[in-house]
């Protein structure tokens, strides 16, 4: 299994590459007024407008720095009702993929109410990588905000 790893607040997190559509350079985002702080805004990807979530802001509370290694991860966001939408995630140090064995995956032991998206840990070269569960990333209110039901696809 291949994990795309990135950093937020000095810690390493990983996303399953099966959920990633593309890794793109750091985009120019149009901010959404009165949206939560971790909603970076709207960006253009392959001629489409996709909502962008700042993972550093979401996990650590500080916005991602505009560096060369800071990139836009376009993922296939699956809704509970079966629909799926492309969603942009801004992540720092998203420059590497790592191969993991599913057998060595450790499920999440500590449940944190404010961080439901943590989905167990992997070990790689002496460091812990926390996996993210994409479907738990957004609370229902923000999900409904970004992807209203009327927008059928």
């Amino acid at each position: 299994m291949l994990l795309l790893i990135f950093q937020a607040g000095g810690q390493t997190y990983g996303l399953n590459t099966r959920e990633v559509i593309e890794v793109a350079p750091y985009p120019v985002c149009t901010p959404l007024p009165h949206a939560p702080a971790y909603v970076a805004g709207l960006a253009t990807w392959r001629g489409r407008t996709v909502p962008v979530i700042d993972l550093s802001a979401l996990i650590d509370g500080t916005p991602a720095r505009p560096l060369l290694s800071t990139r836009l991860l376009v993922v296939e966001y699956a809704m509970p009702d079966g629909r799926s939408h492309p969603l942009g995630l801004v992540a720092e140090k998203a420059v590497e993929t790592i191969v993991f064995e599913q057998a060595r995956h450790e499920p999440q032991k500590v449940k944190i109410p404010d961080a439901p998206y943590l989905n167990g840990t992997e070990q790689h070269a002496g460091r812990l990588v926390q996996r993210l569960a994409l479907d738990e990333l957004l609370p229902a209110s923000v999900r409904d905000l970004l992807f209203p039901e009327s927008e059928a696809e």
Partner: protein
Amino acid sequence: MEQINKWLARLKIAHKLILSSVVFALPIAILLYYVTAQYNRGISTCQREIAGTAALEVSPGLLRDLWEVQSRASLANSGATNSSTGLAETRKRIDDAVATLQRGEDLITENLIDRLSGFWRQLEASGSTMTLAEQAALDHQMVETTTQLVLVILDDSSLILDSELHTYYLMNVTGPLLLQSQAALAEAGSVALKAKAQGRRLDARDLTQLQAQCGALVNTIFPRMRYSLETALREDKRLHGTDTSFQKNVPPLFERYVELATQLSLAVSNSSEPASAAIDPGRFVQMASNAEDAGVSLGETSTKELRALLSKRIAEDRRSRSEALLMSLFCVGLAAGVVVIVTGNITRPLNRVVNLTTDIATGKVKEAFDRLKGGEFREFISDEDGGGHARTRDEICKLIGSVSTMTESLNGLLVKVIQACNQVAGSATQMAAAVREVEASVSEQAASTNQVSATSKEIYATVQDLARTMASVTKMASDAANTASGGVNNLNGIRSAIDGLIRSSEAMARTFESINEKTANIDKVITTITKVANRTNLLSLNAAIEAEKAGGKAGGFSVVALEMRRLADQTAVAALDIEKQIREMQQTVREGVSSVESHAQQTQASSTAVTELSSGLGQVIEGTTKLGPQFEAVNSAMQMQSQGAGQIAEAMVNLREAASQTKASLAEFREVAEDLHNAVGELQGEVGRFSTAS
């Protein structure tokens, strides 16, 4: 005694006066009690005597009847037929008399009267069963008992000490003396009656008996009766005046009694003559009986009078007792009124004086003074009463006068004391302030002295150093003059070397400029390399993701993607290393350029300085040669100054000691002044309690 004094000290004056009055009223009450008791005793005695006179009243009649019964009994026994005609009447009278006695009996006479009635019932019940002798004996016993009864009643009346003696004498007449005379008459009558009953004439023995009885009657009993009666009349006259029923009624009856008895006595003594031997005993019997009747009526009347007198006495005693009671009560009431008035007269002004002095004690001197001035006590103080007469001043008035004078003096004194206090307090405050100022000045002076002393010591040391320095400078100056002349020559060589240095520096600066430009070009190339490596990395990431999605079908493709990314990463790292080195080099070049520029400036400045030094040294040489003698003069002056500074330091030490002594004295003085201030403050506080009228 102490406790009594303590207790008395707790009482108010009014209470003490009332207590004294009670103490004085106590003997009066006791005296009154005894007087009343005496009156009561007299009254009760009189009442008992009135009761007793009931017995006295009936006893003469009883005695006569008893004699008559005896005589008639003896007559009946000797055969006389007409003797029983009056007997029933006599017996009835005796019955009445005994019943009267029984009604009036009391504790003392009870036994005798019971015995008498017993005898009488025995005698009545006996009738004809009893012999004459036995009847006579019983009769005689009754006579004895009656006589004894009368004596007991008389003995019981202990009126001998009484002032109203006529009752005693009258009682004497009514009682024993009358009984004796009646007994004598009865005896005489019985002698004659016996002779008459026997139908014979009186013989010589009978006459002798009659004479004895009559002689005793006339010679012994009647004078005593007369004496007693006269005394009683005299006393009655003295006490109740001349016009009383006693004086009117009793003497004629007595005279008649005496007259009848004297007739009997004369008849007896006449019949003792041999010539008149034949004397009818009936005549004697009749005469004796008449005399006895007169005695009975005398006894009844005098008893009645005696009772009246006694009643009068009781009334008088009661009236006197009431008068005594009323008088005493009136006196006590009068005394109580006087006590109340006197108490009020004493306590009222005293209370006002106490109020006044309480005001003064609590400090309200002004109010007290105003009250005095307002004339509240004028009535006590002034020497004249309302009518303009000089009045006698009692102790309370004197006390009020003294208090008034005292209050005025106290007020004046307080006013003066308060003024004095205020002045002294002001002075003390000023003095304390002045002392504080002086003390502060002395402290400042001491500090200044210390500073001056320290400064003079520093001057001394500095002058010493300066002197030493001057000496070495003098020496060095002469050396410098020699050295400088050689230095001028060397300076010319230094200037030519500096010029060469300036030229080489300018060449170096130009070289650094060209290096800087080339490095900027290298930086652009590095940036381009980094961008390319970044794009390559992105590309390789996407390739790896796509290969993973494709799974086993793109096995070789994923390896290629991984290699590509590794190459891109290495390129990026290499580019970053080069960029870092370039940046460090650029920094070094910039520093080199600036240091070369400053070096050139310094070289230029050195060149200018050398030129100035060269010209200056010439002047120095010229001046130094002139300095030598001047240094000597300065040096000697320095020595003098040094000595002066030492002396100043010593003087300052002395001055400082003196200042510290002055300061200590001033501190003591200040303490004294503060003590004075405090004392005056306390005094003012004490005096301030008193409000004054100024």
